[in-house]
């Protein structure tokens, strides 16, 4: 992957940039930027409206992205691809349009302690609104979901009568019950890097309760792993364009067509309407039912170029590349700094993505990232929108370095050198 940096114009302007924050957002290749410019310069009309050629061209390009996304994740049909603003909006859409339709008092919603706030808070709020039980699957000390081990605390709840002690000798049977309407979990932790055994979890959960809806936050998975939604067996997955080389302002919700048809609309207004009378309105079929108002047309059009780029390089190659860098980085960190480095998440490199969250000595994550920034190295410091997880890890914040296809071994070495400077300055 030696020439990949050349495809990303930002490296022309910043040749020494060490970008280790792709978990927050990825850099953009030239073909994506060019495609956005093409739309704005050549056919910047609205979609689904004009009969004139420019609008038809825009609509064609727009719907072609839907086809490309559909093929990329092996959806059953392009009608199962809903465009939103981001993964967060996709999850909130589900909490409104699905959650508020099916969740009643006493039902259960299950999520995990390693979720991003966007797959935690909407379910927490919904539970408190309707009087549902909000159950949270815990992790074990190595950063795996605590779903298989015995005699271990596996879950917490918003209902005091359910105590952790009640759940000993646990398996999924004690987490998922006939009353569980929704299981919402992440494919890859944005802090620990843990790749959850989602396919296996879905199979077991559906065995216990065939009526359960399973929502997978794939924001950190789709950019890095080959995802086949039909093989996975989930009912919904969500992800964001901007984390997979695409433009900002575009999220994707994939859902099975028959379920999407049953759900409430999300927002009402332009584009999603069939007919409006004074006393009633009717709505379009999915996916347009969920796409009210003018979307981010140029950005959605350009997303397909990002996917084409990823396909050209190959998701398998991307995963291998990140795995190699992650292994090297963990080895170098531990060998150089020993016990001063505390790395979170699975030790087995096969079970994690290219995300390394750590603490370093007694230095504050903000100071570490500031000194790294002064040396041209971009990492993230804070709780990474995963405060429940950080509380569970008993740390207020971590430093997070993450890799993508444009990172290389030199970036890892610069991170090590940067941390040596941190030690030197703050010691």
């Amino acid at each position, binding site marked *: 992957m030696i020439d990949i940096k050349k495809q990303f114009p930002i490296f022309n302007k910043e040749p020494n940039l060490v970008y280790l924050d792709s978990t927050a957002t990825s850099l953009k290749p030239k073909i994506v930027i060019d495609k956005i410019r093409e739309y704005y310069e050549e056919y910047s009309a609205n979609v689904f409206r004009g009969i004139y050629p420019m609008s038809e061209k825009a609509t064609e390009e727009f719907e072609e992205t839907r086809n490309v996304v559909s093929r990329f994740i092996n959806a059953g049909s392009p009608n199962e691809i809903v465009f939103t603003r981001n993964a967060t909006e996709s999850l909130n859409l589900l909490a409104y349009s699905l959650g508020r339709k099916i969740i009643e008092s006493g039902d259960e919603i299950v999520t995990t302690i390693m979720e991003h706030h966007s797959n935690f808070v909407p379910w927490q709020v919904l539970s408190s609104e309707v009087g549902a039980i909000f159950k949270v699957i815990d992790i074990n000390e190595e950063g795996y979901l605590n779903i298989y081990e015995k005699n271990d605390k596996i879950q917490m709840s918003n209902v005091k009568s359910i105590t952790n002690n009640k759940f000993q000798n646990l398996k999924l049977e004690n987490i998922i019950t006939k009353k569980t309407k929704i299981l919402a979990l992440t494919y890859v932790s944005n802090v620990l890097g843990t790749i959850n055994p989602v396919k296996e979890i879905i199979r077991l959960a559906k065995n216990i309760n065939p009526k359960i809806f399973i929502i997978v936050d794939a924001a950190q998975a789709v950019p890095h792993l080959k995802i086949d939604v039909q093989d996975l067996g989930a009912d919904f997955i969500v992800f964001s364009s901007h984390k997979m080389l695409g433009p900002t302002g575009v999220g994707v919700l994939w859902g099975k067509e028959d379920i999407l048809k049953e759900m409430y609309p999300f927002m009402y207004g332009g584009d999603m309407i069939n007919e409006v009378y004074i006393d009633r309105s009717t709505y379009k079929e999915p996916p347009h039912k969920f796409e009210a108002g003018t979307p981010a047309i140029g950005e959605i059009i350009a997303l397909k170029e990002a996917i084409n780029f990823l396909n050209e390089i190959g998701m398998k190659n991307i995963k291998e590349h990140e795995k190699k860098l992650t292994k090297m980085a963990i080895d170098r960190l531990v060998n150089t700094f020993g016990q001063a480095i505390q790395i979170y998440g699975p030790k087995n490199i096969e079970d994690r993505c290219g995300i390394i969250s750590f603490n370093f000595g007694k230095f*504050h*994550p903000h100071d570490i990232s500031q000194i790294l920034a*002064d040396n041209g190295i971009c990492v993230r410091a*804070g*709780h990474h929108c995963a405060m429940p997880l*950080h509380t569970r890890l008993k740390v*207020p*914040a971590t430093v997070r370095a993450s890799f993508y296809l444009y990172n290389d071994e030199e970036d890892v070495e610069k991170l090590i050198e940067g941390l040596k400077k941190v030690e030197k*300055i*703050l010691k």
Partner: protein
Amino acid sequence: MNIYQDIILDHYHHPHNQGSLDTPDKSIQVSNPLCGDKIKMTIIFEKGKVLKVKFSGEGCVISTASASMLTDYVKNRSKHELKKLDSKFIIKMLGIDLGMNRIKCAVLPLEALHKLLV
């Protein structure tokens, strides 16, 4: 400009007025949930002026240095005068160029002080 200058690092390594007063007139704890910084500040007034002040807690270099310098500054100054202090004062006091994201660290001790002055 590098924010980790000697004077800042000196306050970080050897903070002034660190600790807790035994019989304070008032005490307060403030936190920045984003980074987990916590500052506890205790204060004793005399005739409307600050007689003694101490702080403790966990913080980054910037928030610790800011607390150290601010607690030096406030002694023997009137409540009235101190109520007027704002983020511009803190930036000037630290003498470094802080980005938007780090200002919050620098003004956390000021937030504590303002709550003690109420």
